């Protein structure tokens, strides 16, 4: 009796102690979901600064939701005139300094819905979430959402969210030491009920520009690197999409694999190599995005994603032609 009473007391105490933590996690996850939904479904336009390392730029963004889907336009205000326009069918990257437009077909919504990162319960195995009050920004009440990774394979985030709309007014990407990798800070943000479609049209007159297109269709006359996959993945990363596509400037179709942990994502591109290609693996960092390229079995494998360099390297070097194993093994933490 005494024993069962003590157990009951422990259970009650445990529940009392645990409830606030779970509530906080649940509340934080709800804010993360709300932010993701707001970014995808709200009309908004604003100015923000983007800071990494020693560089800072000012950008203008317009996001419009229409009957046929969303359209988005991002413009660099640094004088280069560069901009990106995402229509319901294509993504256009305008580079007026080179008189070039890169064109990427937009992924169909069916496969994209399955592949897009979606915060869910399993996120908490990989990240610790927290939510608290913050100082007002842009005259709006703010909640601060912390997304702290539990290992070194992903970045952390601190997000200042508008309490009314869920829109992020400021975001900081943090490395494993808790130091900022990238900062995006809105200096102006409006959430109008309606945005004129002309606001999302490119301001660049691309007459006479070179249009370089990618394509989803693979020609049957080339050597297609079919059936590759990662043999070992960092904890929590799963393959969520695989497709063949023709990339600008690449003469053969490329296999594109997408891995996600539910929040961060990594793309792996596998293209047949040639004897003239150099073999040293190389890597680069671009804001919070990392890229790593290496050669595997005569193919060039490149992994890119908004994760630490180590993560793209671990994934790229584990890719190989698909064998009998049904699923990749996870790298231990």
């Amino acid at each position, binding site marked *: 009796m005494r024993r069962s009473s003590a157990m009951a007391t422990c259970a009650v105490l445990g529940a009392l102690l645990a409830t606030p933590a779970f509530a906080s996690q649940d509340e934080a996850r709800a804010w993360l979901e709300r932010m993701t939904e707001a970014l995808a479904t709200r009309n908004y336009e604003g100015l923000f600064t983007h800071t990494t*390392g020693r560089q800072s730029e000012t950008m203008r963004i317009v996001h419009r939701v229409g009957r046929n889907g969303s359209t988005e336009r991002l413009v660099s205000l640094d004088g280069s005139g560069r901009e990106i326009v995402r229509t319901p069918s294509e993504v256009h990257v305008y580079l007026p300094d080179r008189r070039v437009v890169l064109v990427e077909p937009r992924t169909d919504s069916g496969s994209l819905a399955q592949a897009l990162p979606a915060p869910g319960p399993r996120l908490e195995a990989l990240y610790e979430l927290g939510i608290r009050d913050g100082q007002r920004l842009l005259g709006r009440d703010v909640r601060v959402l912390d997304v702290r990774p539990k290992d070194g394979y992903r970045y952390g985030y601190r997000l200042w969210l508008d309490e009314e709309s869920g829109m992020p007014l400021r975001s900081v990407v943090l490395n494993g030491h808790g130091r900022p990798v990238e900062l995006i800070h809105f200096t102006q943000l409006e959430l109008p009920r309606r945005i004129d479609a002309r606001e999302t049209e490119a301001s660049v007159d691309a007459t006479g520009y070179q249009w370089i297109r990618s394509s989803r269709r693979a020609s049957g006359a080339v050597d297609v690197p079919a059936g590759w996959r990662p043999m070992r993945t960092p904890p929590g990363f799963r393959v969520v999409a695989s497709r063949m596509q023709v*990339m600008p400037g690449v003469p053969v179709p490329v296999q594109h694999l997408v891995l996600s942990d539910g929040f961060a994502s990594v793309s792996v591109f596998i293209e047949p190599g040639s004897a003239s290609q150099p073999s040293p693996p190389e890597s680069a960092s671009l804001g919070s995005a990392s890229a790593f390229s290496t050669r595997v079995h005569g193919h060039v494998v490149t992994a890119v*994603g908004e994760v630490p360099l180590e993560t793209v390297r671990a994934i790229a070097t584990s890719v190989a032609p698909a064998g009998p194993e049904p699923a990749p093994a996870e790298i231990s933490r």
Partner: protein
Amino acid sequence: MTEQIREQISAWLDGELREDETGLLVRRLERDPALRGALGRFVLAGEVLRAPGGQLASPGFAARVSAAIGAGPGNELPVALREKPAGRWSRPLLGAAVAAASAVVAVLVLRPDAGERNLAAQTATAVQPVALAAPLGQRSSPTPARNQRLAGYLVAHSQYASPLSRRSVWTGVLAADPGITRVAYDLAEAP
């Protein structure tokens, strides 16, 4: 940076600058790269100083950032901010890249002099099961095709990223500059 500009930027960041003054400030930012750099330092400094519990900052960091705000445009950020290498593409290189459609080689463009610093930082945070191998700093000349390849990969990847990450990736593509950092690994070919 004059006191007036500093006050304007501060008001802008707090969303309290008048609309007409905002327009003037944005146009000035477009014309003046040094001012953009100062703005970046200003924003990051404010960010770090506001961070609860000092989680973003190392000891003495705030003082160094404060010093950087007052520094001239040619000066670099404090060490702590440089530990993550400035990772961006070369704008001229990216442009040239796009112009050249001929394909060659693997990826990335890179500034070898920053490679060792980058690797040192990465090594410090290296994930245990996957050890890095030396030596580093292999040199190679960036080619237009490499830059074009990376731009294409990032835009293709952005479609599968969350809206937050997509904006980040796009911004990186638009803001490509000479800061990209290269690290070359001496690894055996994967099995």
